[in-house]
C-alpha cells in the first residue's frame, strides 16, 4: 500500500515536471558539443580530395569542428566570394569572410572563384569556367530539407536533401533534364541526367558523402563546376568516438541514479519484514543455483533480432558507408531519424512533426516528394498493420537497451520494482501525457525531439554529434527506470501505443487456450507490460492488447501445454509446453541413470 502511494506521487510529479520542462527543453543543457559555426576553426590544406575537380575545395580532416579549404590558384582565391546561409537570410560575406563569420550562420558555405579560362575538354579552345565549392557542416549538415541559397551571385548550385539526393539549380531554377558529369571520390567519371524536378537520383550515398564534383556546361563554352563536401567522417574516426561521449555521460549519471534509488529504497523499506538482509542475498555478480534456463530457441531468436535491429538502426549504415539503404521504407521503431545512417527510415519524426509532413506535399516539394510521402505513409501503415508491436519486441533498439539493463540488474542480484496493477494504472497517466506530447507538442511550438530519450542513444551510436538537452535527463531516468522495471520505457512509449492500435490486422498474434490455463499468473508476472488480462481472461481466445509486445516471455514462463501461443497467420509458431518448462529441473543425465539403477 505504502509503495503504491509513493509510486502515485512519483508519477504525478513526473507528469507535472515533464509538462513544464518540455517547454523549456532546449534551455536545459546537459551536454553541449559546441556545434555553432563560430566554434569551427578554419585552416588551409594542400591535400586535394580525390573527388575534387574544381580548383577550390573544402575538407574536414579527421576530427570535428575543423573546416579546411584549399585551392590551386592563389590569385583566383584572393578574389573569391563567400556566401553563407544565416538565420536572417543568405548573404555574401565581406572580404576575408572566413575569419569573421556572422554568429547566426547555419553552416552552409559556398565559395565561388572568378571566371577562369581553362581548356577542360582538350579541344584546344579555352572554356569559361566558374569554379565553386560548397560545404555543409555543423548542426545543419544532413538537413533533409533542401538548404538552398537561391542568390543571383550563385549561378550553379547543388543542394543535398532527402538524405540521398542532390538537387541541381541553375540560375536559381531547377535544372531539369540536363546532363551532368560527376567526379567521385574513387576517381570515376559518371554521367547523370537530372529528372523533371532537377534531382539527381541514384547517385550512391557513399559518393555524396565522401565528396564529389559536378560539372555542368549549358552550351559547351561556359562550364560550371562545384565541389560538394558534406561534413562526414569514417566509422573508425575520433569524430565518431566523440559522438558517444554524451552517451557515456548519460550512462554514468544513470548508474549514479540507480545507486541512489537503491539506497533510498533500502532505507524506506527498512522495516518491511525481512526484505532487505545483506546475508540473505547473493553477492553482486555471484552465481545463482536456481535453474532458470530452459532451452528456448524462440527467445534466442528474439535476442538475435534485437541485436540485429540495434545494429541496423544505428551502426550498419555508417559501417557500410551507404547511409540509409532503404530510406523510403518507414519502419516504426523507436530509433532516431536524426541518426541518418539507419538502414531504414524511422517515422517518429514525421508523426511528432505532422506539420512538416504536410510541408512535403506542398509547393516546395513537387511531385517527386508526393511519391516519397506516399511510400513513406504506405510502408508505415503496412508495417503497423502487418507487424504492429512485434517490432517493439523484436527490433526496437530502445528495447534492447532496456533488456540489457534488466540483464545487468539480474547479474547484480538487485531486486526489481514490481509494477502492481495499481502502479500500472497510475503509470498510464504518464503514458497518455507522452502520447499527447508526441502528437500534439508541435502545435504548441515545441519540438518532441528535444524531450525524446531515443535521440540520445541512436544519434550517438550513429556517430552524429547531438547536444543533449532535456532528452538527456530523460534518458538517465529511462536507463535507471529500466534497470528496476523491465521495459520501463515501453510501458509509456507513445510510438509503441500508436503501433499497437491496429493489432487486429497483425500477422502475429498472441492466443490463449482458456481451458488449458490454470490461472497461475506466471504470464502476468513475466509480462514486462503488466497485462493482467492475459492471466484473468477466461472466455476469449485473443488476449493481445494494445500494450502487448509479443515478446514471448509469457509463453516462455507458461507451464501449461498450449495455454499460450504465438501465431503467425493463425498458425502457432511458438507454444507453451509443460515439458519445456519443467525439464530444467530434471537431473543431469548421470544422475538420472543413477536414479534408474
Amino acid at each position, binding site marked *: *500500500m505504502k509503495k*503504491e502511494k509513493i509510486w502515485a506521487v512519483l508519477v504525478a510529479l513526473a507528469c507535472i515536471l515533464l509538462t513544464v520542462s518540455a517547454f523549456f527543453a532546449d534551455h536545459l543543457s546537459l551536454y553541449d558539443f559546441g556545434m555553432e559555426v563560430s566554434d569551427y576553426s578554419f585552416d588551409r590544406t594542400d591535400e586535394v580530395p580525390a573527388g575534387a575537380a574544381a580548383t577550390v575545395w573544402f575538407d574536414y580532416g579527421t576530427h570535428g569542428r575543423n573546416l579546411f579549404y584549399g585551392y590551386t590558384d592563389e590569385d583566383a582565391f584572393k578574389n573569391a566570394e563567400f556566401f553563407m546561409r544565416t538565420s536572417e537570410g543568405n548573404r555574401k560575406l565581406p572580404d576575408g569572410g572566413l575569419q569573421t563569420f556572422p554568429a547566426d550562420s547555419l553552416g552552409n558555405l559556398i565559395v565561388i572563384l572568378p571566371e577562369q579560362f581553362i581548356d577542360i575538354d582538350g579541344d584546344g579552345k579555352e572554356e569559361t569556367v566558374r569554379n565553386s565549392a560548397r560545404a555543409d557542416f555543423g548542426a545543419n549538415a544532413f538537413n533533409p530539407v533542401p538548404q538552398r541559397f537561391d542568390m543571383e551571385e550563385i549561378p550553379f548550385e547543388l543542394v543535398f536533401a532527402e538524405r540521398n539526393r542532390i538537387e541541381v539549380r541553375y540560375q536559381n531554377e531547377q535544372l531539369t533534364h540536363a546532363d551532368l558529369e560527376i567526379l567521385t571520390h574513387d576517381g570515376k567519371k559518371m554521367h547523370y541526367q537530372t529528372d523533371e524536378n532537377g534531382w539527381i537520383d541514384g547517385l550512391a550515398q557513399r559518393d555524396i558523402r565522401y565528396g564529389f564534383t559536378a560539372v555542368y556546361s549549358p552550351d559547351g563554352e561556359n562550364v560550371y563546376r562545384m565541389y560538394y563536401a558534406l561534413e562526414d567522417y569514417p566509422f573508425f574516426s575520433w569524430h565518431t568516438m566523440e559522438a558517444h561521449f554524451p552517451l557515456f555521460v548519460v550512462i554514468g549519471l544513470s548508474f549514479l541514479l540507480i545507486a541512489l534509488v537503491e539506497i533510498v529504497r533500502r532505507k524506506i523499506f527498512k522495516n*518491511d*519484514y*525481512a*526484505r532487505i538482509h545483506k*546475508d*540473505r*542475498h*547473493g553477492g553482486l555478480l555471484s552465481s*545463482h*543455483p*536456481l*535453474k*532458470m534456463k530452459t532451452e528456448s530457441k524462440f527467445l534466442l531468436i528474439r535476442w538475435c533480432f534485437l541485436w540485429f535491429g540495434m545494429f541496423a538502426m544505428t551502426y550498419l549504415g555508417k559501417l557500410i558507408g551507404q547511409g540509409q539503404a532503404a530510406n523510403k521504407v518507414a519502419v516504426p521503431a523507436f530509433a532516431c531519424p536524426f541518426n541518418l545512417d539507419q538502414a531504414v527510415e524511422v517515422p517518429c519524426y514525421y508523426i511528432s512533426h505532422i506539420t512538416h509532413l504536410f510541408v512535403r506535399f506542398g509547393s516546395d516539394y513537387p511531385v517527386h516528394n508526393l511519391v516519397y510521402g506516399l511510400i513513406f505513409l504506405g510502408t508505415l501503415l503496412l508495417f503497423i498493420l502487418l507487424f504492429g508491436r512485434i517490432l517493439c519486441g523484436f527490433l526496437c533498439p530502445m528495447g534492447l537497451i532496456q533488456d540489457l539493463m534488466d540483464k545487468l540488474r*539480474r547479474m547484480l*542480484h*538487485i*531486486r*526489481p520494482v*514490481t509494477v*502492481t*496493477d*495499481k502502479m500500472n494504472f497510475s503509470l498510464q497517466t504518464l503514458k497518455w501525457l507522452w502520447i499527447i506530447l508526441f502528437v500534439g507538442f508541435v502545435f504548441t511550438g515545441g519540438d518532441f525531439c528535444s524531450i525524446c530519450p531515443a535521440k540520445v542513444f541512436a544519434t550517438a551510436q550513429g556517430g552524429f554529434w547531438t547536444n543533449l538537452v532535456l532528452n538527456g535527463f530523460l534518458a538517465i531516468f529511462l536507463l535507471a527506470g529500466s534497470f528496476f522495471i523491465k521495459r520501463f520505457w515501453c510501458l509509456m512509449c507513445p510510438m509503441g501505443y500508436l503501433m499497437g492500435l491496429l493489432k487486429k490486422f497483425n500477422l502475429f498474434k498472441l492466443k490463449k487456450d*482458456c*481451458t*488449458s*490455463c*490454470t*490461472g*497461475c*499468473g*506466471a504470464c502476468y*508476472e*513475466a509480462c514486462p507490460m503488466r497485462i493482467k488480462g492475459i*492471466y484473468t481472461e*477466461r472466455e476469449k481466445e485473443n488476449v493481445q492488447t494494445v500494450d502487448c509486445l509479443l515478446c514471448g516471455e509469457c509463453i516462455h*514462463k507458461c*507451464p501449461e501445454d498450449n495455454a499460450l501461443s504465438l501465431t503467425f497467420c493463425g498458425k502457432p509458431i511458438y507454444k507453451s509446453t*509443460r*515439458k519445456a*518448462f*519443467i*525439464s*530444467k*529441473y*530434471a*537431473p543431469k543425465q548421470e544422475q*538420472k541413470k543413477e*536414479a*534408474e539403477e
Partner: protein
Amino acid sequence: MTAGYNEDTRRKELFEKKSARVAASYLRRIKELPDMPKEMEPFLDVLENVHVHFSDVEHETQQKTVGTFCIMVPNELIYAAGGVPVRLCSGSYTAYAVGDETVPRDACPLVKAVMGMGDIRMSKAFENCSLLAVPITCDCKKKIAGMLKRVKPTVMLHVPPMKGTDADMEQYLQELYRLVSVLEKTTGNRVTEQTLAESINQIGYAQYEMSRFLKYRRCDPALLHGTQVMAVMNSYAYMPVWKWAAQMGRLNAEMEKRLSERKFIGRDNQPRILITGSPVTFPNIKVPLLIEEMGGRLVADETCLGERALYDPVTVVDNSFDGMMRALAGRYTRPCDCPVFVDNKQRLYRIRQMIKAHKVDGVVYHVLRGCLVYDYEYKIMEEELGAMDIPVIRVESDYNEEDVEQLRIRIEAFIELIKLKNYAKQKKEGDRHG
C-alpha cells in the same frame, strides 16, 4: 498418579492398536489391487511406518520437522530453512473419535482427527514437530490453528480470501516473509538466496517426475490404479522431497517399461472416474478404493492431497530473493483452486481441463461431512458438468467405516450408470457407422 499414568498408557495403547489395524487393513486393500508396480512399495512402506508403526518421518537428527496444513504453506521455505515439512492433515479414524470430544459436532472430520492427534499423542510425526504452520483457510482450520497453539508453537498464515488484485498476493508475500523469520528462529538457519533456490530446484525435480508420471496416469486404457496413485501422493506428506522424487523417477521408469510392453491393468471400456472434493487422506481412502473395487478406473483426482499438491510449479521470473518469494506467493495462491477462495471459478476450469486431458467419463464429488466449502461448490459443479454431459455423484462420508456399505451401493450404481451410458453411446455410434 501411577493409576492415572497406567490408564493413560492403556488408553493410548488401545488407540494405537485400533489405529494401526485400520491403517494396515487399508494398506492391504491397496496392495491387493492387482498389478501394483513394484516401485510403488517404498511409498506404501512410508505410509506403513507413519500410520502403522507410528514412527517419525525420515530426517536427519539435527533437522527440525515442521508440521504443515493445507497446501498453501510453501515447502520450499521449510527446506530452505533446513527443516523438513510434514503434512499433518490427518485421516485417522481413531484420532477422529478422540477429537470428537474437543471439537464441535458439526466440524469436519479432518479437523477432528488433527485435534485428536494432538490429544492422544500417539503419532511421532506430529509429536516431534518443532513448529506448526497453519494457513487460515476454512473456518475449521482457523479454529484449530488457535487450539493447536496450546499444544505446539504455531505460526498462522493469512491466506487472502480473494486473489483478484495484486494487493492480495502482496499480502500473502508479507505473510511468507513473516513465515521465513519464524522458520529461521525455529531451525536456527538462515533462509538465503542460495538455499531457497536449491529447495525450489529440489521440489521442481519432484514436480518434474510428477509431470512425467501424469502421462502414465492419463493413459487410456489405464496403466495404474488411481487409489495406489493417491496413496503415493499421500506419501509425499511424509517423505523428504528428494527421496520422493528419486523414487518417483524409478516408478516412472517402471511405468515406461509397462507402457512399452502394453501391460494395462484391465479392459479398456471401464468407466474412467475423476474424484474431486474434500481431501482424501490416508487411511481415509475408502472412497477411491470403493470406486476401483466396483470396477471404475480412477484416472484423475482433483484433491489437495493428490495431484493439486504438486501440480503447479513455481515460476521464478526474477531470480533475486524477493523475486523467488514473489514466485512462491504466486504459486501457492493464484493457481490454487481450494474452495476457500471467494470466487473459485478456477476450479471449474481445472476440472474441465482434467476431464479433457484424462478422458473422464464421470465425476465423484467427495464431501466430508461438515466440509462446507466443498459442499457449496457442488451445485455449480453439477450444473457445469451437466452442461458437459458428464455424470456426477455427490458422495458424503465421515471418518468411520459405518457408511461403507451405503457408499458401496451408490458408487456401484453410479458406475453401472456410466457403463450403460457408454454402451448406449457406442451402440449409437455403431448404428451410425453400420
